[in-house]
């Protein structure tokens, strides 16, 4: 009978919605947190949640480059924040 097939998300699609939500949450948490270390942790959360979105589209080389560049940028930002100096 026509209409028997319902539009149901595939497994990867559900995962993409999940990691998109985690990425949005990480970006909002980066914006609202006052502590610089919490900001850096939230940026780590954001960069981790972006990776499966890139991998699922097939941009594996972009994911390799991003996963090597993002820790370097975090460590550069870490030079600016020492403990006790917000």
């Amino acid at each position: 009978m026509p209409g028997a097939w319902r539009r149901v998300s595939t497994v990867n699609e559900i995962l993409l919605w999940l990691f998109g939500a985690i990425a949005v949450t990480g970006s909002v948490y980066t914006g609202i947190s006052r502590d610089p270390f919490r900001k850096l942790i939230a940026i780590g959360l954001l960069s981790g949640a972006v990776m499966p979105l890139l991998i699922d589209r097939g941009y594996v080389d972009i994911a390799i480059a991003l996963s090597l560049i993002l820790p370097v940028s975090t460590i550069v930002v870490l030079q600016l924040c020492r403990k006790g100096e917000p």
Partner: protein
Amino acid sequence: MVQQAPRGCLEVEELIPASPDQVALWVCSLVALYGAVRVITEPDTLRKLPFLNVFSFAISGIIALMIPHPLALVAAVAYFVGSTFESNAIASVYAGGMEKGEHRE
């Protein structure tokens, strides 16, 4: 005659993970979700960092399991090394690090 599903659609029963790699993908994504929730809700900053590590390990597993491509393994290794380095750098700076001119044996 078996009716074919439209392109991009799956039947509801197919959502239940059947193959072992899909089960592993679900387990990794559940671990990642737990880590992300604990990172957000943890009140202490220093306690957030182990859960950031948990999240990163789960993401590494998801990268390796999501597509069958040889470069995906390289991406998983690169992300594993990079994220562990990042978390440990944040923890080291937060804990005080080494003083200027200090030499530890």
